[in-house]
């Protein structure tokens, strides 16, 4: 019984720490976590536990540990003497947490390291230009209108509206094919 409770509290703590560090959740504070999960601990005891878990989580995330690395790391931690080590239950909780959260934490780290705007959305439509005030035949034909939504994390989007004729679309497609070719070459090598 006591073990299940302890496990639940620890999972909750790890989730809370992850929310703050990796998902920019400003509503969660150390105090909140202590009151919700470890009301029986003293301030110092909780702080020690919190900081230890946070440190371990950061080590695991920054190295993006795979299964083997994680097991080795946690085993070493359980073998540590004195107050710096972790118990078997704690190691198990960390292992469970990382297995389920690794992808999400990694995504968050990746987006944190992206400083240029990303493409948040794209909408397009194709018009058929039937007549032009210039009256020249060159400008008849399909015209694509594209709206790109660009934005950085936490900032408002910028909308860029572009128009393309068929020639232009094909030019862009050619470049995109070049990019894809480069990607394939890298993937092949790794």
């Amino acid at each position, binding site marked *: 019984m006591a073990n299940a409770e302890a496990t639940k509290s620890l999972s909750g703590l790890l989730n809370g720490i992850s929310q703050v560090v990796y998902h920019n959740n400003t509503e969660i504070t150390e105090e909140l976590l202590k009151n919700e999960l470890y009301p029986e601990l003293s301030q110092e005891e909780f702080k020690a536990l919190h900081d230890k878990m946070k440190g371990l989580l950061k080590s695991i*995330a*920054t*190295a*993006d540990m795979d299964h083997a690395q994680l097991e080795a790391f946690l085993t070493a931690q359980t073998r540590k003497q004195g107050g710096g080590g972790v118990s078997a239950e704690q190691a198990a909780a960390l292992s469970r947490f990382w297995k389920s959260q690794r992808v999400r934490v*990694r995504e968050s*780290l*990746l987006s*944190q*390291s*992206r*400083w*240029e*705007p*990303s*493409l948040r959305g*794209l909408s*397009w439509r*194709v018009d*058929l230009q039937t007549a032009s005030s210039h009256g020249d035949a060159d400008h008849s034909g*399909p015209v*694509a*209108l*594209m709206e*790109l939504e*660009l934005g950085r994390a936490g900032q408002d989007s*910028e*909308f*860029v*509206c*572009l*128009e*393309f004729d*068929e020639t*232009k*679309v*094909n*030019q*862009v*497609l050619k*470049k*995109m094919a*070049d*990019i*894809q070719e*480069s*990607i394939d070459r*890298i993937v092949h090598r790794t």
Partner: protein
Amino acid sequence: MIRFLLLTFRSSGKSNVSGDELVAKLEKSSNNWAKASLQVLHRVWSEQGALVHAQQEAQAMLSVGQLVDLQWKLGMSVSSDTCRSLNSPYVSLLLKVVEPSGQISQKCLEMTVPQFQNFHKQFKEVAAVMETV
């Protein structure tokens, strides 16, 4: 005089300055402003400034540009201060866009490989539709 006012209002709208900021800027640029004139400008801008700014933003959204150039780069994020082991390829695009006004602007964007492939796919769809039209 009118041209000066138009230019001032237009650039103030673009930078979304407040009435106080506008007056401070004008005072700094010249000693010849009469107090009364500045007060009028302040009041007018405080009342109308937000509207001008909103209209300019709407106009910017409605203007359709043309892509003049597309440069690309394929990179690999190796490591960052928050994650030593990123190992993530990314595609970086630099778009050179010319507005109907003639102004040229550069837009830079970054995407992951799956995001790029999705972008590529949508472009192919556009091309396919254009062919049938």
